[in-house]
């Protein structure tokens, strides 16, 4: 294997990690502040992907479609919060898991009715479909590079909002003690809706960027959702920093494992054995990593201190 291939796969890992982070940030905030386990977060990702694909077909403009899809997933997120999730905040985790599981069934079926069960594919506009030379001799797809860039910018913005603004202060306060925040006269209901809406928009952003890379189909949200759970468990629930670190680790480990485990194993095992064991172990790698992290730090790498669980 050559150095270019390793570099390319590392960037792919980063790109996947960035997507995971966009999902994980919303999920971890919603959990940290509202104490809500939202399995339906993946559905918002799916909604984002479907809206972007459809708007792109209608309007013919890729950028316009992105903006519309982002707004669309924000609206869907707020409606879901107002209609279904509001009643769940005071319930125990079991109720939340089951009710949001019900939401997933509903969304997957709704999407299947509206768009059908077969996968959709988006074509990229020409200015995004080429390659860019990162270093002399190293070419990388423009679109994937853009995804990385957008993800990093969003992570930076999120950091500024959370640490430098009044809203961010309320979010951090809510995460450590929401009863006290309410007692100090903050409109907690509104805060909840804002946080959930932003989380939904971030999931939608991840989904609409995923469209041109992965297949857009019903159930796509849950596949990534469970990997996002791994991210959050590794990073520590409620911590945005943990989400970022966890996402990059999981993205890298998963991508590099899938790319290089088989060739690496074939140097020590026989070819057929490596052919069988390589993909099997690669698909289990992030879960084994999670188990290893938990064995040493049951609260994740960046535990949120002082929070009620």
């Amino acid at each position, binding site marked *: 294997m050559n150095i270019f291939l390793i570099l390319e796969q590392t960037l792919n890992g980063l790109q996947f990690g960035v997507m995971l982070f966009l999902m994980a940030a919303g999920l971890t905030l919603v959990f940290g502040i509202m104490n809500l386990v939202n399995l339906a977060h993946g559905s918002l990702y799916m909604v984002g992907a479907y809206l972007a694909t459809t708007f792109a077909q209608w309007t013919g403009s890729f950028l316009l479609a992105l903006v519309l899809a982002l707004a669309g997933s924000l609206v869907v997120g707020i409606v879901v919060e107002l209609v279904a999730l509001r009643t769940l905040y005071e319930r125990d*985790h079991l109720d939340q898991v*089951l009710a949001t599981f*019900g939401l997933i069934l509903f969304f997957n*079926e709704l999407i299947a009715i509206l768009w059908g069960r077969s996968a959709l594919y988006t074509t990229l506009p020409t200015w995004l479909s080429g390659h860019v030379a990162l270093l002399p001799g190293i070419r990388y797809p423009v679109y994937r590079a853009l995804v990385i860039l957008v993800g990093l910018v969003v992570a930076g913005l999120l950091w500024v909002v959370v640490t430098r603004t009044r809203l961010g202060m309320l979010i951090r306060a809510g995460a450590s003690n929401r009863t006290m925040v309410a007692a100090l006269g903050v409109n907690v209901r509104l805060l909840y809706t804002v946080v959930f809406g932003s989380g939904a928009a971030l999931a939608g952003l991840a989904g609409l960027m995923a469209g041109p890379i992965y297949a857009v189909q019903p159930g796509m949200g849950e596949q990534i959702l469970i990997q996002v759970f791994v991210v959050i468990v590794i990073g520590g629930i409620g911590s945005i920093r943990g989400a970022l670190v966890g996402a990059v680790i999981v993205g890298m480990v998963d991508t590099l494992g899938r790319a290089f485990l088989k060739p690496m194993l074939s140097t020590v095992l026989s070819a057929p054995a490596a052919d069988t064991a390589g*993909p099997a172990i690669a*698909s289990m790698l992030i879960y084994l990593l*999670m188990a290893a992290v*938990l*064995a040493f730090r049951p609260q994740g790498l960046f535990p949120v201190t002082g929070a009620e669980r």
Partner: protein
Amino acid sequence: MTSRARPLVLGLGLVALAAVPPVGGLLNQPFYVDLVRRVMIFAIAALSLDLILGYGGMVSFGHAAYLGIGAYAVGILAHHGIHNGVLQWSLAIAASMAVALVIGAVSIRTSGVYFIMITLAFTQMLYYLGISIEEYGGDDGMRLAVRSQFPGPLDLQNGTVFYYVVLAILLLFLVLAHRLIAARFGMVIRAARSNEARTRAIGFSPYRYKLMAFTLAGAMCGLAGALLVNHTEYLTPEFMHWTRSGEIMFMVILGGMGTLVGPVLGAFAFLLLENLLSGWTAHWQIIFGPLLILVVLYAKRGLFGLLPGGGPRDG
């Protein structure tokens, strides 16, 4: 109604279950014998989940894993030409027990939402493992050419015999679970659910008891998996799909968690409803999803709460 009515209702239910094959044969409706057999297999799985969820307070979102392990144990032995049922089912129980022990040992160290996510993630790992092993069918799964073979009159190829075997196992597990819950072990498990700190203070180690319960539930569900693969005569990684875990959990809630009869009722209600709705529209899940939300929000006591004398939990 009085609590004296309860044994009567349960007895009637048992008679009804036992009467399904002859009545089905009389009416020439083998489909319903099949359906009820499937229901009872899922009832075993739901009962095993209820032991840790309802009584132990452990919200495991990965119970389908053991269904899959049990099924794969039978399928893999059959694939290599070993059709001996005793061997197959022993391996199913032993393997699911071992997997539950490992998953439990890691996840019971955590609690609350971590526990939910970790059990879910491990099950997903096994699901992907099933997909990636081409030798055993990968994504497509494999057919079980011959059902598990037992000596003597226990011929599972005969649908009626198989039906009564499943019924007997369900009853056996109900009795065992009943004894277990009432025993010291069950007391500690229930105590740990209601107050872990106090349980520790009076000298029990909740971790060990919880892990034991988790492992036991995994073993029970593994046997359900062995039955399920014999029932469907094929197996795929879908047995371990995370939605399957959610469905088993829904059965427990629907029937009434923390009760023994509840999961059985829940399995009935769930699968009959699924059968009814899917016969009516291919998009049955669009009704099923909101229904699940409504049950969670407004009918947490489940169907068992509607039975005479079936009121409170731990009943």
